[in-house]
């Protein structure tokens, strides 16, 4: 008698409490910290790397800004604050989830994902939150210094200063959600180069405010593939509290993409062929 095909009886973390997830995340942090402290030179190299990254970025924007006209919605100081905001969000994203997207390719191709799927936690939690980059912890210093510098030049009020940390966390959460959804497609393509290319290009697209783009590209990257919502909505609201539309749109799309991520994940697991079998 042939066996009927059915979905694998995976846990999906349905009966696990929030405190269990929190304790597990604390363990992830401890393990990653211990691993990072084994290679102390990496802290220095990562610091140097980020200093070069920040310097080249700032200089690039300064070069382009010299040639931009004066009929843009933002002043030069507001523009550079946008750049500083991007760098701070970049740090948060890299520290908490950045490494996970690279590790995911190996997990899929080498069969390590099998062990993750069998655990009594939702696999999305393990795949995308278990790699914390402790070796870039020192880089919070230059990232914070840059945003304080450009925030002072833009003459932010105390309310705007208070909103900045919250907005940087929300922005990095949004980006992590989009990146997780895109990275999940590696379970279909098996190879990650093309998928990571898409992630990078969306990030490059987002490195300029949405008003730098026009017509169809702006519409597509606002409503369908929301790269324009990575950073722009937060700064637009910060500079003008009446400009809340994009911020509300990004919150709404968060819910849509979260539902999409869970659905895509369950479809991907169904068609996933383990390398270890």
């Amino acid at each position, binding site marked *: 008698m042939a066996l009927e095909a059915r979905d694998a009886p995976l846990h999906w973390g349905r009966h696990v409490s929030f405190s269990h997830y929190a304790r597990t995340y604390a363990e992830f942090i401890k393990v990653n910290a211990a691993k990072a402290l084994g290679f102390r030179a990496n802290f220095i*190299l990562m610091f140097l790397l980020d200093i070069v990254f920040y310097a*080249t970025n700032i*200089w690039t924007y300064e070069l382009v800004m010299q*040639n931009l006209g004066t009929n843009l919605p933002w002043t030069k100081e507001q523009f550079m604050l946008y750049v500083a905001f991007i760098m701070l969000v970049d740090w948060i994203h890299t520290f908490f989830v950045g490494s996970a997207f690279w590790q995911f390719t190996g997990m899929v191709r080498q069969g390590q994902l099998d062990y993750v799927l069998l655990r009594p936690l939702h696999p999305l939690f393990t795949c995308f939150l278990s790699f914390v980059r402790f070796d870039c912890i020192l880089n919070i210093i230059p990232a914070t210094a840059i945003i304080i510098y450009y925030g002072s030049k833009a003459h932010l009020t105390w309310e705007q200063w208070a909103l900045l940390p919250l907005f940087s966390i929300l922005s990095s959460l949004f980006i992590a959600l989009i990146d997780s959804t895109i990275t999940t497609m590696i379970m279909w393509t*098996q*190879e990650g*180069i093309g998928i990571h290319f898409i992630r990078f*290009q969306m990030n490059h697209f987002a490195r300029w405010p949405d008003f730098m783009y026009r017509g169809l*590209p702006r519409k597509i990257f606002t409503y369908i593939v929301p790269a324009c919502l990575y950073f722009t909505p937060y700064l637009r609201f910060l500079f003008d509290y009446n400009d809340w539309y994009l911020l509300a749109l990004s919150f709404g799309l968060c819910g849509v993409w979260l539902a999409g991520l869970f659905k895509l994940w369950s479809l991907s697991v169904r068609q996933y062929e383990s390398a270890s079998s």
Partner: protein
Amino acid sequence: MPGLNSNLAKWWATIKVAMVNLTTYRMNFVLQILGPAFFFYFIKYNLWRTVYEGHGGGSLSGYTFQGMMDYHAWILVSGMLYKGSSSNNLSEDIRMGRISTYLIYPFNFWEFHTSSFLAFELVQIFICSITLVFLVFFGLISTPSIPGLMLGLGFSFLGGLLWYLFQYAAGLLAFWLEETWMIRVLFELIAQFMSGGVVPLEMYPAWLKSSLHLTPFPYLTYYPAKAFMLQIEDPLRALGIVAFWIVALFGLNQWLWRRGMRLYTGAGM
């Protein structure tokens, strides 16, 4: 010359295997073909259109809007021809002790990785051709001339070789370092900025521009892009400088290999 024929046969066999590896994952391959042109339109074209409109048209540092698009399109093409080459596998081979096999094969470590580089170039030439057809067909760039294509391909190959030698040197540092990817990323960041990959070098301050032309970085993308556009003022001087850096990096790699082999124990680093 049976010895030379058999050596060339080994090179060709390795190149074929590497090309098959590079094209194994079809979806990934399709994304590599379509993605760059697609994002060129969405990002570079739109961004620079806004910059030029804000500037009231005209030219920026000697570039009209069409000239800037041509420049960035050729930067995209020359970037595709050099950038994919990475020493990931090389440094892992050293750290995991896998280079022991290359020490006894009749095809050494350098020959193997250089064959992979040549295979990569061949595949990328195919991908770049499709990207170029797309960009010309949709009127995003001016139609290139045959002499420009030939000169540009030549400079792009030299730029690719230069980058491969950089990456090879970074990979050889695995004899001494646990992690080499940070060195590679650092190179890439510096190269991206100093090679004119972000904005043309004409937009840089004069003091930086003149000294950059003596470094290897502009020969990765700026000079190949200018070669495609037939805008290099002194091609022989450019060739001389890039040849100097290629020879210098090759010598450095040979020295690093000899020093590294003294430390190598065959059990992984």
